[in-house]
Each structure stands twice: as structure tokens, then as C-alpha cells.
């Protein structure tokens, strides 16, 4: 028995290498692939279901009180469900390392710690954006073909809605990545994400007085709606402002996660 080997070339830890490591990690866990598949199915499945029912006089689908009012939003009925699924995927990617203990191996390999978080966020964003963009393009194209007088790619606001939806799904996932690393608990982070993306807006609608409605538009879910909707709501941010606010939440969450990772014990 011997451990002697032909001299191993000594290399340094670098961000591209940590990116490669996270890429391997992302694709080598079955639950990641399953969650990714479910997220895509939710977006496409609900979108096509709602599209096929749109305009035929039956229940148009979608959550009660939030029925699609135009053909394009019919095709994107599944967005809310996909937000949760991609968010859960993001949580699993970071909190999963803490719940399994993998994080100690990861941080021993990269003791500067923060490259692990940045690489995770980058790999996640790249993979999820590509997948979500493809899914969102498919659900729009096929969905509209099911609707009489459906919209086409050249209609105003369509390209923004398709790309914006992919951006919203990626951003929700990144919120999950940040919350998972910040809270180090899968159930805790998923519950928080659900609260932030859904309950907050509902609670605000019930409790916040009329004069405060300016505040509501800055909630993560409302900011997300602002850059995915084809037709702009009144009292909503402009698409660019919505994107900026939403990105701000992601940056703040990842920043808080980075602060905790750098500061506390693994």
C-alpha cells in the first residue's frame, strides 16, 4: 500500500475552478434534476392548460380572482408555480449543503469561503436562465397557437414578457440560493421565500391603507410583475424600475448570506 504518486501539479484555487466544481455539484444530485424538471413542467403544463381553456367561455384557469385577462398572461399562468419550484431549487442548492454536512468539505477545499457562494449563484443563474428562457419561449409559442387570435412574437411587449419571465424565475431561484445560505435550513428558507413572494403581497392588500399603496409596488412580487407583464398596471413600477428593485432584493439577500458565511463558523 502506498500513496506515492507521480508528482501532482500544484495549482491554486481560482474562481473558474470553483465554478467548475459547482457545475459538477449541480448536475450530480438527482433531486436537483427532478426539481428542475418539475419547475419546467409547472410552467409549461399550467400555461398550456390555461391557453387551451382561454376564450372558450369555461373557467379560464389560474388562481381565483387572478384569472388571465389577455391571451399572453393565459400562457404564463404557470409562472407563480414555477417561481416556487425554481425558488425551492435554489434553496436546495445551498441549504442542502448545510443539511447534509457537505458544506464542511466545500469550505475546507475553498477556505476563503465566499468564492463558493459566488460560484453557486453564477452556475445556478446561468443554468436556470437558459432552461427558464427555453421553457418560457415554448409555453408562449405553443400556448398562443392554441388561442384564436393569439399574440405573436412581434407584438409589443411580448419579447419582454418572455425574457422577463425567465428573469423572474432565475431571480426567484437566486433569492432561494441566498435564503438557503443565510438560513442554512431547507424548510425555513422555502417558507420564507413563499412568504416573501406570495403572502407579503396578500397581507399588504388586506392591511395596508390606501394612502400607502406606493409602498406595495416595491414588494418583491409586485416588482417582479412590473417587468414580466405585457400590459402595465396602473400604480406599478416601470419595467426597468421593477427589474432594478427586484435585483436589489437578490443583491441584499446574497449580501446577507455572504456576511454570515464569512463571519460565522461552518
Amino acid at each position, binding site marked *: 500500500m502506498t500513496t506515492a504518486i507521480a508528482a501532482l501539479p500544484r*495549482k491554486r484555487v481560482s474562481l473558474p475552478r470553483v465554478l467548475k*466544481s459547482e457545475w459538477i*455539484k449541480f448536475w450530480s444530485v438527482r433531486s436537483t434534476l427532478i426539481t428542475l424538471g418539475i419547475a419546467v413542467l409547472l410552467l409549461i403544463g399550467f400555461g398550456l392548460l390555461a391557453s387551451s381553456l382561454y376564450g372558450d367561455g369555461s373557467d379560464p384557469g389560474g388562481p381565483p380572482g387572478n384569472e388571465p385577462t389577455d391571451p399572453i398572461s393565459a400562457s404564463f399562468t404557470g409562472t407563480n408555480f414555477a417561481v416556487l419550484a425554481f425558488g425551492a431549487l435554489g434553496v436546495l442548492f445551498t441549504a442542502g449543503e448545510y443539511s447534509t*454536512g457537505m458544506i464542511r*468539505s*466545500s469550505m475546507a477545499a475553498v477556505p476563503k469561503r465566499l468564492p463558493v457562494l459566488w460560484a453557486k449563484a453564477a452556475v445556478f443563474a446561468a443554468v436556470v436562465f437558459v432552461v427558464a428562457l427555453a421553457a418560457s419561449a415554448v409555453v408562449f409559442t405553443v400556448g398562443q397557437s392554441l388561442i384564436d387570435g393569439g399574440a405573436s412574437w412581434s407584438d409589443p411587449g411580448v419579447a419582454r414578457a418572455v425574457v422577463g419571465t425567465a428573469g423572474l424565475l432565475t431571480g426567484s431561484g437566486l433569492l432561494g440560493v441566498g435564503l438557503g445560505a443565510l438560513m442554512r435550513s431547507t424548510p425555513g428558507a422555502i417558507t420564507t421565500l413563499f412568504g416573501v413572494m406570495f403572502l407579503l403581497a396578500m397581507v399588504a392588500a388586506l392591511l395596508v391603507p390606501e394612502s400607502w399603496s406606493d409602498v406595495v409596488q416595491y414588494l418583491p412580487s409586485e416588482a417582479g410583475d412590473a417587468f414580466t407583464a405585457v400590459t402595465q398596471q396602473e400604480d406599478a413600477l416601470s419595467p426597468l424600475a421593477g427589474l432594478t428593485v427586484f435585483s436589489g432584493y437578490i443583491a441584499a439577500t446574497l449580501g446577507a448570506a455572504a456576511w454570515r458565511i464569512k463571519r460565522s463558523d461552518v
Partner: protein
Amino acid sequence: MIEVHDLTKRYGDKTAVDGLAFTVKPGIVTGFLGPNGSGKSTTMRMILGLDRPTSGTATVNGRPYAEHPDPMFQAGALLDAKAVHTGRTAYHHLLALAATTGIPKSRVDEVIDIVGLHEVARKRVGGFSLGMGQRLGIASALLGDPEVVILDEPTNGLDPEGVLWIRNLMRDLAAQGRTVFVSSHLMSEMALTAEHLIVIGKGRLIADVSVSGFIESASNESVRVRSPHANALHDLISGPGTTVLSIDRGLFEVTGLSAEEIGDRAAGAGIPVHELTVIRPSLEEAFMELTKDAVEYQSATIGATR
């Protein structure tokens, strides 16, 4: 080389590691001994930069571990066998760790062979036994062919064949000039593998000695003597430098004289001796004697507390 200076770690008002200072030298196996909860794992985590010391420093090859640009080549560690994502295969686990510092795939296959996990490398770690988990942990420690190897209770959960394998592995690594730092709560295990011992209790340094020195100080032997003429023999052997402890009628324990000396004196005076037994405390007893005041979770004898 591992150097620890005034290392302290507090969790709230509980002090886990209290002003530790020691050096672990290359070329030998150094045992890190202490009862459960004495701060061994916390110390090892601080050496690897996983836990932040409250005060003090720990360096690996002259620098804090986290400040090396090539950490996996400097030190490899098995801290616990569960530092693995259960949903990933052993191969992909090692591949992901290797990728962080550009270690080639061929080295991943090599360490899998070294630890004997070839058959199960493509299986998910969730189904591994504790022993297989330990082997995987050791594989990840060896990935970077590091100068310093840190193993926390590596024989946990291993079968006798595995224990023997670990012992040989540690000796080989040390013989190659590496620093091998291995923790255990079993003195007997350390007596077989280690050349040097660092003993801690309740987070404090108790002993920093060579194993041979420890054995010498521990083999404070005494002689049990049984004789029908105990009083006469007692007078004959008592003197400065000798302690005689009476145990029973006609039976006592002598320290400070060898069995031969006692026997010769008794024979010279014509005193019959019925028993002459050398009593040597075991290493385990010596270790327990050394750490008895520093045991974190002392067990009370049932009934004694009533």
C-alpha cells in the same frame, strides 16, 4: 507542520478550547488524545479555518490554512464522515472537490483505489456504511497529496481489517515525511500508531510527550507481597524511597523496590513469602489517571448518588 498558539474558542460562556499551544512535527504520527467533549474536534476545525478562534492562531506550514493559495495541497482532513451530500456518488463528490484546485480526474481514481472504494465509487453516498464513509473521507483528505494530514477519529466504525489499514496508512504517510495528526479517545489505539502524544482535557493542554516517555512515566510499577510474617518483612523493606501500603492481613503493596530486591531480603532473613507479584498499570489506566479531573461527562456509579 502545525503550530497552535494560545488557541481559545468560546461558545457563549462555555469555553471549548482554552489557551492551547503545541506543535505537530512532520515525519511522525502525532496522537491527539482527550476524553469526549475535550475540544479535539473544535481544535481541528480551527486549524482548518472552519471555526473562527475566539483568540489565538493556528497555522499549517507557517500560514493560517485559509491563507494558502493551494489549501488542498497543504493539508487534507477527515473531520467527520458525514461531510458529504448523501445524494451524490462518491466519485462525483471527490471530482467536485478536486475541481476547486485543478486536481485531475486521474488523481480522483487514484485515491478511490487507495481507500478501496472502487466497487462503490459510482453509488450514492447515502447508502454507505459508516466504515465506507470514513474511507471516502480519507480519500478526500488525500486528494491533494497534502503535506499535512488531519484525521479526527479515523477508526470510528471501521472493522478490524479497516483499523489495521488506517494504522499502516498513517505510518506510511509519516514515513514519507508528512505531518500526521490524528485524534482518538483510545490510548491503546494511539500507543500502537503514534510516536508523540498531545493530551487535552476540558480544552486545556495536559501533556505534550513522546509515547515512550508517556509509557515510562505510566509504568510506575508496584509489587504485591504476601507473607505470613508480614510485620517482620515490613520492617525489613520499609525505608526512605519506599512506600508500603497494607491491603489486608499479611498482604501489602510496595513501591520503590523491585520484586527481586524484596525476594532477596526476605530470603536473607529467612522470612517465607507466598506471593510476589509485579503490578503495572495499563496505558489506558494511566491515561484515565491523567485525565480524570478533566472528563467532561463523568459517569456516576448507579446507587452511589442516592
